[in-house]
């Protein structure tokens, strides 16, 4: 096992509590503003394909990824922009990928649902629900076999609880004591269907069946997510095996940007309630102010800087060239 001191630096250097929580705030704001730009690009018909926004769920990606090192692995989902940014990807290359440009993380070949970035351990977003559970578990298997001290985090939505392969790999991960953490983002809706209509029993009961260490956390509380994730990551890294984290959260937008009329599956009041009372960024901002970790001017500065960053990133992506048609057959085989 590689020692802590010889491991690559953490994703970021945090000197104290104040820095840590201000950084978490900044990361959540960046994700929110990234997604606002995506919404804008999509509705202006500048972005091809589909856009699944992460707004409302920021505390989950940030809380978990802040507990990871840059060389730890994640797998992500079709709703993956938040995971990608939280793990350290740069918004300019992300926007370029979303627009199908050559400067994108996948040279335009993956798009929104397939962003991958080896430099930050991102094994890729996946457009098959539950499609990456094997990959994350395999990355944990390799980490254990190579004794490189890494862990793997598998992000998936509660919709993936319907996929049998999840249970196959959870069983295997527990038998082989693999350093993988299954993070179930329960945003309540499998596309357009409330999860209670698709999910018998309890979510944690599934983890319990395999004897996995498990926890449930308020997914709107970035500090709570971070604390639990830190414990589970430490546990996995020290060879104590896999874990399952249920993070209860909410997706502000529709399943994708075009999912406008949603009253048949959820009410506007419900959406308003989450946005007003349960917003992870507002909640964390209030806590920061109450703790004296910053004043409102400072927080506004954070948001302004993030806004400038995202606007510049969008400009970069729009100005970037498309791949030339002769690249279509490149990289089918390594």
């Amino acid at each position: 096992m590689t020692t802590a001191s010889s491991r690559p630096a953490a994703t970021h250097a945090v000197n104290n509590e104040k820095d840590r929580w201000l950084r978490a705030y900044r990361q959540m704001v960046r994700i929110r503003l990234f997604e606002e730009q995506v919404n804008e690009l999509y509705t202006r018909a500048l972005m091809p394909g589909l856009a699944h926004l992460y707004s409302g769920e920021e505390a989950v990606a940030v809380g978990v990824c802040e507990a990871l090192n840059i060389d730890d692995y994640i797998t992500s989902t079709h709703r993956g922009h938040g995971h990608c940014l939280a793990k350290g990807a740069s918004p300019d290359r992300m926007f370029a990928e979303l627009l199908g440009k050559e400067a994108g993380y996948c040279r335009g070949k993956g798009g929104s649902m397939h962003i991958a970035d080896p430099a930050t351990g991102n094994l890729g977003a996946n457009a098959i629900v539950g499609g990456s559970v094997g990959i994350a578990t395999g990355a944990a298997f390799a980490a254990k076999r190579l004794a490189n001290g890494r862990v793997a985090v598998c992000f998936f939505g509660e919709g993936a609880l319907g996929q049998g392969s999840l249970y196959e790999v959870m069983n295997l991960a527990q038998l082989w004591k693999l350093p993988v953490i299954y993070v179930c983002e329960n945003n309540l809706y499998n596309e357009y269907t409330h999860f209670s209509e698709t999910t018998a029993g309890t979510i944690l009961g599934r983890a319990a069946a395999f004897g996995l260490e498990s926890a449930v956390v308020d997914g709107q509380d970035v500090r709570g997510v971070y604390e639990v994730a830190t414990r589970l990551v430490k546990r996995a890294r020290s060879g104590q095996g896999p874990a399952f984290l249920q993070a209860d959260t909410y997706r502000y937008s529709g399943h994708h940007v075009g999912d406008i009329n949603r009253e048949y599956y959820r009410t506007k009041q419900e959406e308003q309630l989450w946005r007003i009372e349960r917003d992870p960024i507002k909640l964390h901002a209030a806590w920061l102010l109450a703790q004296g970790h910053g004043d409102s001017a400072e927080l506004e500065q954070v948001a302004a800087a993030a806004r400038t960053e995202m606007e510049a990133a969008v400009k970069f992506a729009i100005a970037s060239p498309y791949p030339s048609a002769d690249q279509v057959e490149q990289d089918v085989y390594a």
Partner: protein
Amino acid sequence: MPERAMPERELTFAQAVREALAEEMRRDSRVCIFGEDVAEAGTPFKVLSGLVEEFGAERVLDTPISEAGFTGVGVGAAMTGLRPVVDIMFGDFLTLTMDQMVNQAAKAHYMSGGHWKVPMVLRTTLGATRRSAAQHSQSLHAWFSHVPGLKVVLPSTPYDAKGLLKTAIRDENPVVFFEDKMMYKLKGPVPAEDYTIPLGVADVKRVGEDITFVATSSMVQVALGAANMLEKEGISAEVVDPRTTWPLDEKTIIESAKKTSRVIVLDEGYGRYGVTAELAAVIAEGAFYDLDAPVKRMGAMHVPIPFSPPLEDVTVPTEETVSEAARRLCNKS
């Protein structure tokens, strides 16, 4: 070393596969094996016997009966530094791995713009006539040959099995390696040294003048048997073994078709939309004006493989049915 060195030793097909695995595991500590009953049991076919004893339980791992799950683990492990050889006991169980192979393994490199690689091998079986009925007898390699990003290998001799498997393990891409389970006891010359056979290079297993048999895997031995029968009747048959359906050595196949002007393509999968259909199309596109007869396709009958022996036996081409078809094609029946 040259592909046709003078080997002095004979091994069975199963021993050749095992030797390839053992050599690659000695050569590269990243190579590991997992699947159902691969360790102490050495698989039901005993192909892997002795490997766990040499390489230990950390590199030869028994899995739960979870093909989708452990194939996915293979994909992730391959992306992050290992070179897994995943064992799917019967080719029929490939149905359970399809999302992992088709949507994940085959696409990870392309979708990531070339960033991630999936150097894994999925070893499995094909072939009927073992009285195993419809769910343990299929030859499903055409499905994988259809998917960009995968390579598909079909060895037909112990020599090819060893050389091709070593190449497959060293390849940077996902490779599906099909072994005919009826062939595990087939003996043939296999050099003890390290040698590899490139993927995408066909092998002319028999030189002939009057007709070409393009045959894969289990059908190579059938084609060779038919060729021997025909020789006594004055018909000289050439047998071309593509060895891999992707990459495909179109050049060697087309050259042989042009030379003999008559072709039968033989593959144990289903003919409809299958490997024989693709091979026939390649020949039609590349050798049309040199052909003296339509390309004839022979493969498994379009039925689920039946259990009852007299029924099962008629579902696959035999030396008799192939030689009869050849006579007709050469106007000598």
